């Protein structure tokens, strides 16, 4: 059953701060043409396509959109946003859904760890560091690393990854920015 075939949920139009964000990306402007979905390379793998997600938001059924995990498949290529005839910032809305999916524990723990490992590495070093990222990402189930083995070996052989993390002088400043953001956004 698709989102549109389901009986309409009670209309709750309260504005969700994390959804409407700070930029004017108002999903109520969407007139369901589907250009976003037509432009999306990963829509085929989503439970709810971008157009359907916009529709769910209009119907006040954001929880369904969040629980579906569709936002996690968005690659943030911005095709939908660039093409939207109504000027809806679809990509930013999908990102907001993605944030909620991760924050409200609807995502596969492995995918959650992917985001956490990346951000933690950047918080600690100011830049991305492949080795530390992989260590954090795969620590709970190292067997999964097998899937990355061939790629990792090539990177090592070609001298592209170093064991030593990058050095950014103002690493403390970056960490302070992370703390401030968490404080403003009310994240743990």
């Amino acid at each position, binding site marked *: 059953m698709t989102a549109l075939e389901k009986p309409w949920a009670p209309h709750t139009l309260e504005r969700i701060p994390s959804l409407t964000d*700070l930029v004017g990306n108002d999903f109520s402007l969407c007139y369901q043409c589907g250009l976003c979905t037509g432009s999306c390379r990963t829509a085929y793998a989503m439970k709810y396509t971008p157009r359907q997600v916009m529709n769910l938001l209009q119907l006040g059924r954001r929880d369904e959109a969040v629980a579906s995990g569709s936002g996690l498949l968005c690659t943030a290529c911005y095709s939908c946003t660039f093409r939207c005839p109504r000027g809806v910032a679809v990509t930013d809305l999908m990102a907001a859904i993605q944030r909620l999916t991760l924050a409200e524990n609807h995502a596969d723990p492995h995918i959650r760890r992917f985001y956490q490992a990346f951000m933690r590495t950047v918080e600690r070093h100011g830049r991305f560091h492949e080795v530390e990222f992989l260590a954090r990402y795969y620590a709970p189930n190292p067997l999964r690393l097998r899937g990355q083995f061939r790629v990792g070996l090539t990177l090592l052989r070609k001298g592209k990854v170093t064991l030593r993390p990058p050095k950014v002088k*103002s690493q403390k400043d970056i960490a*302070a920015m992370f703390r*401030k953001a968490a404080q403003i956004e009310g994240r743990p």
Partner: protein
Amino acid sequence: MKYAYYPGCASSGTAKECEESIQAVMRSLGAELTELEDWNCCGAAIATGVSYLLSLALPARNLALAERAESDLVTGCSRCYMNLIRAVHYTQQNASVRQKVNELLAEAGVQYSGKARLRHLLDVIINDVGLDVIAERVTRPLEGLRVAPYYGCCQGMWTYAQFDSVEEPHCFDQLLATLGAEVVDYPLKTACCGGTLSMSKRTVGAGLISDLLAAAGDADCIVTACPLCMFNLNSFQNEAGRIKGTHYNIPVLFLTQIMGIALGLPEKALGLQRNAVPVGGLYKKIAVGTAVPSGEASASGPR
């Protein structure tokens, strides 16, 4: 031509060959790129999934640093460029976003006012260096080489919106034609490579890469303008092939690598030995390609 230069994390690691070739080619073209001191990660495609403010403030810190250095900021990574220009746009559009971002930047002791001008490497190469200058410098025309330009997705769109058509960019085609290559047109040239999905959701990510490689199929090589696409298209050809029950072995080069070859720069300076899919075969194809017309020339006398 002097610029502050933002390499980005991919260029300093998984796509080191991009960085090496950018430096070599830009130096030979007389453009001076000074690495932005103490730059930080732009948040890639990940920060938006965790924090809206960080997804803007991380790139904004780099813009603030460029502003302090009073230079234009150039980056050779489309993903970084997209994040940076998104920060530029959003902070300009919305005073409350600007204020919140600056609140974060204050923690790092900098402020961003919107003065620093952001440029993509391709923009600098085409509009500042100029195709005419590049044409003069070509010592090894890529004749006979069939090259598929991969513009990348709308990370590209943000890029091309500044100096080319958003839906049908052609600057890359012109550049490759200037180098003497035969440009291969294919429908997916502006489609997304999947970004980080190749790591976080392999089945979907590898599928997107597979479609791209298949679409550019009969080209001798693919050329990208983004180190992340470079990593994806190079490193996951096995996985991509398995999905379609086929085997890909198509060299993928960065735009400055193919330029470097045409400009006659040494292989090592272009980091060609670092490419996951070996590129040695391309030299033979160019040699064959150029040998044919010169052979004809000698047979029919000097032209």
